[in-house]
């Protein structure tokens, strides 16, 4: 359903009545003068310390952001921010920021740049882009992006005539999961997963280290589930914080998760623990599923997973007992071993068997309401060449309904010139050298480029090998598009500047529009500033700009339909219009229509599987130079099982070097010898060990896991790159 104007007016009526928490000073409350000190200003905006998009309120004193709070109206934050959100000003006021446009003068990678004016830098980029277009066609320029400000380059790219863009969020993160859920339910669990955690009675986490992996509202719900005594079953080779809260910790042998999942499915079916009425009504392929999983017995799974058979059965029954109020967490970063769509399919099938999709405590349904996007011109030229994603061997890579692209396909084309050459990269919001596996391949691809332009806040590794570096404004310094969010309800949120941009930094819209002007494409960017664009969006949607600006958040009334009810039957956008336990689409492409277990390679003696994850106070490498955050967590450590550490003669605090199966060595990293991990793997927090000398806080702190991820296993279904297939040995640094 599209929201009509009348419904919109109702929405505004509701929004106007939203109470402001007495403890919170929203701009609206401030207008009445509550506790306002001289020189104090508050601005509602969206946090960009990670990509969850929490509503934040910046307190500004004398032109400087001094405190950040969660917006109590915003469902992503509910008045709270995580450590990163609380520390956002540490990035804005980072002395290492890129201050002016820079054009490379030395050889690539030697760090020699000259300061340039915006005019000079943008003219340079536009000329290079046009030169590439003349020689190779417009498709030879591509975009790697992540986050709101980088999205302004998408219409630029389309107007220029290139269909090639990608976010690491797909092939290096949640792509496989999204494809799997799309194939099973006709919908994915959402970028901000629609988890009804707060109402779950049993929660199953496969590797999802909630709490350490910090996504504000999801972790609030996680804590709320703990408070309500939900039973957690945590499957993880490492005793994560979540495992510390769990009734059951299953320290599974890495890479064998599917054995447990398929065995659980078998137990559900054999013992009648599944939701038969739900399956009869909404699913198809149950017979094929039952037949395909019959061979997966608890005894077999015990050998494969290194978990006791009794525990496998007990946990299956615990899940079955509380269905449908069970959350089988769909996972997020799912590019593990190269069989990731099939593993994620297992999770989707478990969610279906427990009848938990669209049920209380499971995965709730997305609102059916939507808004038309306010666009400029949409008559983009039709590219002569097909997008690389359509020429790829991964038949379902663009099936997620997200079309966010496969980064490694763009890299491969850049490297080989096939199926056609890529000669220009625009990289914004992602540090590619740290995001993609096999950094050497990334660097070799970069060396083939005629143009690499990187708008960024800080001189991360990728910026420091670019031809042109453009200083980006942080989220506290820029306006940005209104975000339209389709969660359980439909809502819009506002990104607005709290302070003026530092130095010569500019927002993404400015950069894309100024480039468009120089490329003869100005018509595609009709608004002079992004603030004008927001006003146009508000007019189109009949939103009161002032109200949205003050509140930062407006919700559309009566658009939430989270659970299946007689009045709210679910719609499954699959070929059969049902939940597909058996997936014909996969069969048609020669893949297992019901997931089957295939064992993966395990490390040889003396080697450990390299696992990586998150710290709650960092977002990949992008926060590792923020002094407020490094103050809380300044370097990563390598977790080694205490018994193994003793055998290796290393103890906590010792410096070691990790060497992977290809002989690639890490920088020095401290050991954390601990009972909290299995003997066959080691673990590091991702994003550390910066090699950019311009980052005075991050340089050389800890070690970079991505540097050791030289091997990657491509998922044949969607092209995502499994990165937990590297083995390392440990040598003490003397």
């Amino acid at each position, binding site marked *: 359903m599209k929201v009509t104007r009348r419904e919109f007016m109702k929405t505004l009526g509701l929004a106007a009545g939203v109470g402001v928490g007495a403890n919170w000073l929203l701009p609206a409350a401030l207008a009445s003068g509550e506790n306002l000190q001289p020189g104090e200003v508050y601005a509602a905006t969206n946090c960009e310390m990670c990509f969850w998009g929490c509503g934040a309120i910046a307190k500004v004193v004398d032109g400087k952001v001094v405190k950040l709070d969660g917006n109590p109206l915003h469902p992503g934050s509910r008045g709270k921010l995580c450590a990163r959100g*609380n520390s956002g000003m540490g990035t804005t006021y980072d002395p290492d920021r890129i201050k002016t446009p820079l054009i490379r003068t030395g050889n690539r990678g030697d760090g020699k740049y000259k300061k340039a004016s915006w005019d000079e830098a943008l003219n340079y980029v536009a000329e290079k882009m046009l030169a590439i277009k003349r020689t190779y066609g417009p498709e030879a320029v591509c975009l790697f992006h992540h986050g709101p400000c980088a999205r302004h380059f998408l219409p630029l790219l389309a107007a220029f005539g290139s269909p090639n863009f990608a976010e690491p969020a797909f092939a290096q993160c949640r792509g496989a999961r999204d494809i799997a859920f799309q194939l099973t339910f006709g919908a994915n669990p959402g970028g901000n997963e629609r988890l009804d955690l707060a109402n779950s009675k049993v929660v199953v986490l496969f590797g999802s280290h909630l709490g350490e992996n910090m996504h504000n509202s999801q972790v609030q719900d996680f804590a709320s589930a*703990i408070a309500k005594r939900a039973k957690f079953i945590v499957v993880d080779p490492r005793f994560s914080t979540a*495992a*510390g809260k769990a009734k059951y910790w299953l*320290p599974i042998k890495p890479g064998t998760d599917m054995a447990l999942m398929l065995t659980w499915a078998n137990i559900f079916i054999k013992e009648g623990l599944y939701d038969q009425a739900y399956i009869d009504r909404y699913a198809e392929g149950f017979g094929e599923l039952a037949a395909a999983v019959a061979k997966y017995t608890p005894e077999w799974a015990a050998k494969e997973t290194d978990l006791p058979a009794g525990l496998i059965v007990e946990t299956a029954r615990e899940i079955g007992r509380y269905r449908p109020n069970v959350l089988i967490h769909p996972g997020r970063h799912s590019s593990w071993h190269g069989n990731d769509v099939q593993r994620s399919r297992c999770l989707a099938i478990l969610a279906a068997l427990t009848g938990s999709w669209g049920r209380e405590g499971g995965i709730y349904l997305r609102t059916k309401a939507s808004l038309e996007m306010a666009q400029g011109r949409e008559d983009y030229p039709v590219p002569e060449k097909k997008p690389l994603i359509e020429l790829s061997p991964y038949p379902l890579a663009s099936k997620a309904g997200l079309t966010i692209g496969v980064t490694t396909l763009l890299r491969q084309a850049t490297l080989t010139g096939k199926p056609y050459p890529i000669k220009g990269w625009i990289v914004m919001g992602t540090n590619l050298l740290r995001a993609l596996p096999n950094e050497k391949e990334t660097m070799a691809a970069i060396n083939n480029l005629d143009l690499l332009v990187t708008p960024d806040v800080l001189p991360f590794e990728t910026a420091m090998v670019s031809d042109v570096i453009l200083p980006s404004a942080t989220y506290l310094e820029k306006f940005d598009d209104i975000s339209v969010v389709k969660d359980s309800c439909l809502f819009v949120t506002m990104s607005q500047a709290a302070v003026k941009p530092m130095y010569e930094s500019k927002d993404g819209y400015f950069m894309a529009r100024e480039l468009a002007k120089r490329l003869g494409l100005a018509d595609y960017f009709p608004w002079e500033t992004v603030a004008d664009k927001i006003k146009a969006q508000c007019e189109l949607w009949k939103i009161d700009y002032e109200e949205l600006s003050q509140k930062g958040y407006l919700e559309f009334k009566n658009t939430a339909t989270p659970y299946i009810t007689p009045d709210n039957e679910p719609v499954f956008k699959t070929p059969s219009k049902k939940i597909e336990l058996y997936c014909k689409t996969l069969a048609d492409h020669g893949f297992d229509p019901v997931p089957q277990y295939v064992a993966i390679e395990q490390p040889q003696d003396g080697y450990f599987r390299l696992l990586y994850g998150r710290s*709650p*106070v960092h977002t990949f490498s992008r926060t590792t130079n923020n002094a407020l955050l490094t103050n809380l967590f300044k370097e990563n450590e390598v977790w080694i099982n205490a018994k193994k550490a003793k055998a290796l003669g290393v103890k906590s605090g010792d410096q070691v070097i990790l060497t992977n199966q290809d002989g690639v060595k890490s920088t020095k990293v401290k050991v954390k010898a601990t009972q909290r991990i299995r003997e066959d793997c080691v673990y590091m927090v991702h994003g550390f060990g910066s090699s950019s000398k311009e980052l005075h806080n991050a340089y050389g702190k800890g070690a970079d896991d991505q540097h050791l991820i030289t091997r990657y296993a491509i998922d044949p279904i969607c092209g995502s790159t499994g990165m937990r297939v590297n083995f390392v040995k440990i040598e003490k640094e003397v």
Partner: protein
Amino acid sequence: MPRYVMVIDQRNCIGCYACVAACKTENDVPLEHFRTRVVETVQGEFPNLRMELRSELCNHCDNPPCVSNCPTGASYKSKDGTVQINRNRCVGCKACIAACPYDARYIYPGQGFADKCTLCIHRIKQGKEPACVATCIGASRVFGDLDDPQSKVSQLLSEANSSVLLPEAGTRPRVFYIRKQSKPD
């Protein structure tokens, strides 16, 4: 006067450090020092492990050794029951730091006075919660008036067993910990 206390429900603490980060920006705590911290301990042997996450701060004791050991009267027990420091009277002698069994204090670098958690008394006076409580992702830190039986802190303490840190020190802390699910005796 209200009886301000903090209850830390450790069951819901997920060790995310949002409290520590919020405290630092709210109170402009110098980079190398902390007014609050999260202590993480794990006991047992693989795979039988138990984890404890415990956030610590000034206990605003009812029998505060920092106050009784302060030679200048800079450290004092306020009428609202919080323990505060008058920076102008502090000579930086560190007697309070030595006396505090909770390692809650530090000398403010470059200024020379003792510093610590104020329970965000400036926010409380504005009707707000302490910054660490307001941002607590796990709703593990709860602030309120123990003299109000309807307050969340009173209810929490009536529903579950609680303890204080180092009761043997006789400091009578105003920060209470709920470690695990158990009914009060």
